[in-house]
């Protein structure tokens, strides 16, 4: 299949950097760091709309655990949750990026899966599930990806207790405490 390389006219790129498009959801940041804050219910809908707007590639999907840092800066009308799922979308033709940040509660964090629209999020959602325990409903294969299948806990959560082995030194009494 032959295809012309997509040459993108400069004016599109210029246009994209100006102004925050209105998606009916609160937004923060600007330019390449533009972020939209939908609710968990409006999440899939927003991604669908963004897809139609040209954000056809899901570059990244990750989780963040804000335990211990609840009073962070969020736009008006967004209630902070313990977890946040950040989806990084890219418009290849318009050279635009947008981040979608969804707040999720501490108890039973779950979101609909994006795999139907962005099949590439399969591994990323698995990783987020693996590391944070966020459940993606409708995911075809929501199993652990990096950790062993029988692992307990979700290590990137802030309250995951890390074991520690003291570094060996010849003067262990003083060296072991670090």
């Amino acid at each position, binding site marked *: 299949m032959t295809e012309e390389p997509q040459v993108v006219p400069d004016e599109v790129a210029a246009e994209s950097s100006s102004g925050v498009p209105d998606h009916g959801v609160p937004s923060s940041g600007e330019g390449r760091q533009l972020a939209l804050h939908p609710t968990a219910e409006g999440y899939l809908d927003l991604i669908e709309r963004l897809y139609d707007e040209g954000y056809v590639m899901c570059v990244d999907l990750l989780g963040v655990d804000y335990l211990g840092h609840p009073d962070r800066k969020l736009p008006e009308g967004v209630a902070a949750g313990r977890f946040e799922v950040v989806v990084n979308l890219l418009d290849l033709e318009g050279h635009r990026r947008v981040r979608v940040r969804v707040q999720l509660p501490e108890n039973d964090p779950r979101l609909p899966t994006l795999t139907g629209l962005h099949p590439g999020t399969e591994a990323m959602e698995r990783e987020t599930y693996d590391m944070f325990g966020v459940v993606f409903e409708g995911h075809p294969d929501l199993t652990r990806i990096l950790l062993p299948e029988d692992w307990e806990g979700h290590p990137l959560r802030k309250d995951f207790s890390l074991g520690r082995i003291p570094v*060996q030194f010849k*003067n262990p009494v003083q060296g072991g405490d670090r």
Partner: protein
Amino acid sequence: MGYLNGFKVTFARLFEDRVTTEFPAEKRPKPVRFHGRHVLNRHEDGMEKCIGCELCAGVCPAKCIHVRGADNPLADPVSPGERYGFVYEINYLRCIHCDLCVEACPTEAITESKILEFSFTNRDDAIYTKDELVVDDEGRPRHQPWELWMEGEDEHLSGWMRATAPSGAAAFEGRVGWSGDLGHGVRSPERGQTGSEELDGDVENEPEAGR
């Protein structure tokens, strides 16, 4: 014939120089900035440079340095400062040779030599203490039995980071900010962007004090 052209390439290679070095017998020269195992330097008068400030231990991302400072004995001071490094250990099973300790050291006490050929057969050997790390009376790193040394490898302890100033200010490049090392004295730093002619004199356009 595309099938046959490749044969010319491989044949021509027959007559090129070999790039392999026969390692244990011969080592290729290492660059000035090479990160090898550490040494603890001493002043030209034989005093230890380490003042036991634990900056190196603090900055180490691998947590492989263990330092404890102690007050200098008045009668027979170990370092010129008030305190000295009483315990100094590096666990080489963890060290990643990132050189942050060298950058952090305010007195250039710890630098990296060019020895990387050290392999131990037990965990004890991997933990270097002051006895192994401090340079000897001639200013050379101490040669451990499990280290493979070549002639002249102790000549250049890593002095480059000190000479080029970790601040990244061009004006300070090539400006020596340390006292002489035991056995080596003051060695000339790299020329840097300013070139050799400005090395010895005062640096012009010195940034204002109070940084």
